[in-house]
Structures are given as C-alpha cells and as structure tokens.
C-alpha cells in the first residue's frame, strides 16, 4: 500500500466518521424533539387536568350554594331571590364552558338546571308583578331535583379525575 492509497483510505475513513457523526447528531436532534413534544403534551394534559379540577371544585361550590339557597328560600326576602338564582345560573354557564369533555347527557342535565333556574327567576318575577306569593314549595322541589342531578355529574367527574383513562 503506497502513500496515495493510505491517504485515500484515510480520507474515506474520515468521510465515514463525518457521515456517522452527522447521522448521530440528526438522530439526537430527532430524539430531543420527540422528548420535547412529549413534555409539551404532558404539560398540556396537566394544564387541562388542573383547569378541569378547578371547574369541578367550582361546580361543587355552586351545588352547595344552590342547595343552601333552596333550604333558606322561605327565609330569604322574595325580591332578592331572582338575583340570587340569576347569579347561580351564570356560575353554572361559566363552569360548563370550562369542562370540555362533558358527555351529551351531562351537558343536557346542566342545561336543564340552567333552564330551571331561569324558570324559577321568571316565576318569582311573575308572582311579584301579580302581587302573589311564589310557589316556594314547588320551587324547592324543583331545585332539589337539580341539586341531585348536578351532584351525580360532580361524582362522575371526580371519579374521572381520580381514575384517569377509565
């Protein structure tokens, strides 16, 4: 093997090492990108979970407030009731918007509760306008049913958070 052949062989080896180095670098960059993508997805999932957890806690709070208002309806001055129910309705609308993965059935139940709060509001306004007492026993019965329905949704959502992937 003369000097020229050695030089060619050395150049080839150098080229192969160079190509191998490039390949290794690209493979590492790809691996890093995949890891970075996985980390981004995990962070997004965590953020979604936190938003959902907070919305679920707010739902629990709203249910308690609705139930408290139902129990104290007879003691609450009638003119105050429509505003209290309107405020709770707005809470439910906001909470519904923050839980993206509700089923159609759960959405329908929440929509039903929002509608009933509107109905109660209108019922109290109508009674006041006509100088009559609102049918508070009926209001209480209806609100009680909504509390039960919302409570079931809350339990399902908590179960989903406790056991993700189920």
């Amino acid at each position, binding site marked *: 093997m003369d000097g020229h052949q050695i030089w060619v062989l050395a150049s080839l080896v150098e080229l192969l090492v160079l190509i191998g180095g490039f390949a290794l670098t690209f493979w590492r960059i790809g691996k890093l990108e995949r890891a970075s993508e996985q980390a981004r997805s995990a962070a997004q999932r965590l953020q979604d979970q936190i938003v959902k957890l907070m919305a679920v806690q707010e739902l629990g709070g709203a249910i308690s407030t609705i139930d408290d208002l139902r129990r104290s309806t007879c003691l609450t001055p009638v003119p105050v009731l429509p505003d209290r129910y309107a405020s709770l*309705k707005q809470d439910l*609308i906001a909470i519904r918007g923050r839980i993206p993965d509700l089923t*159609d059935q759960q*959405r*329908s*139940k929440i*929509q*039903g509760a*929002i*509608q*009933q*709060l*509107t*109905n*109660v509001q209108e*019922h109290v306004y109508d009674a006041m306008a006509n100088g009559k007492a*609102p*049918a508070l026993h*009926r*209001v209480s*019965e*209806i609100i009680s*049913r909504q509390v039960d329905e919302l409570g079931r949704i809350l339990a399902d959502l908590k179960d989903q958070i406790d056991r993700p992937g189920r």
Partner: protein
Amino acid sequence: MIGLGDKMADKLIQIAELVYQKTANGEINWEKTPDDNTFQTSFPRYSVLVQDANDTIVFKICNEEGQVIERLSEGQASNAGFANLRDLYVTARRTAMGVDEALDEILQTLARRS
C-alpha cells in the same frame, strides 16, 4: 313570533314533530317547572318548553342561558300542518308528572286485591 311559510318555521315545525314522536315513543324525559302549566326537556345546548298559556299551547325553544329564542303557538302549528301540539303537551305533562307509573302501580295493587 315566526312568520310561517319561511324556512325557519319549517325547521321549527320539524323539531316540534320530532319532539312529539320521540315523546310518544318514551325517548324524551320531561320535567316539571315552577309553573304548573309548563314542562321542559333539555338538550346539550338548548331546552324545549311546552306551556298551556290561557288554553293555548305554546312550544318554546330556549338558548344556553335559558332565554326563549323561538316560539310556536298551537294556531301557527296547526296552520302549518302540525296539529299535535296539544297532544305533545298532554303527553309531556303525563311524563313529567309520572302518570304512567302511578297508573301501573294502581293497576298492580288492584290486581293483587282481586
């Protein structure tokens, strides 16, 4: 109020017919409301109310905030070829009040006694 004959009115009649059929088949649950003469059912983003208002049945569609966005009276429905709004109200009322369950239980009790 709708102007019957337009596209929106056709859709409203179509919805009322479907709600009527599904109520008759027991596929829709109706609920009582604070008003003795109004019953409601809800979908993911909207609610439907049927009301006996001074002996005229009114079919209402409400939005996500519970506001009435469209209404159809018995007369309008009838003029548009849908004459079952009163039947829908009666069936919705029976469902909401649990009339079927009450009748079944009474029949069972009477059968046990005989």
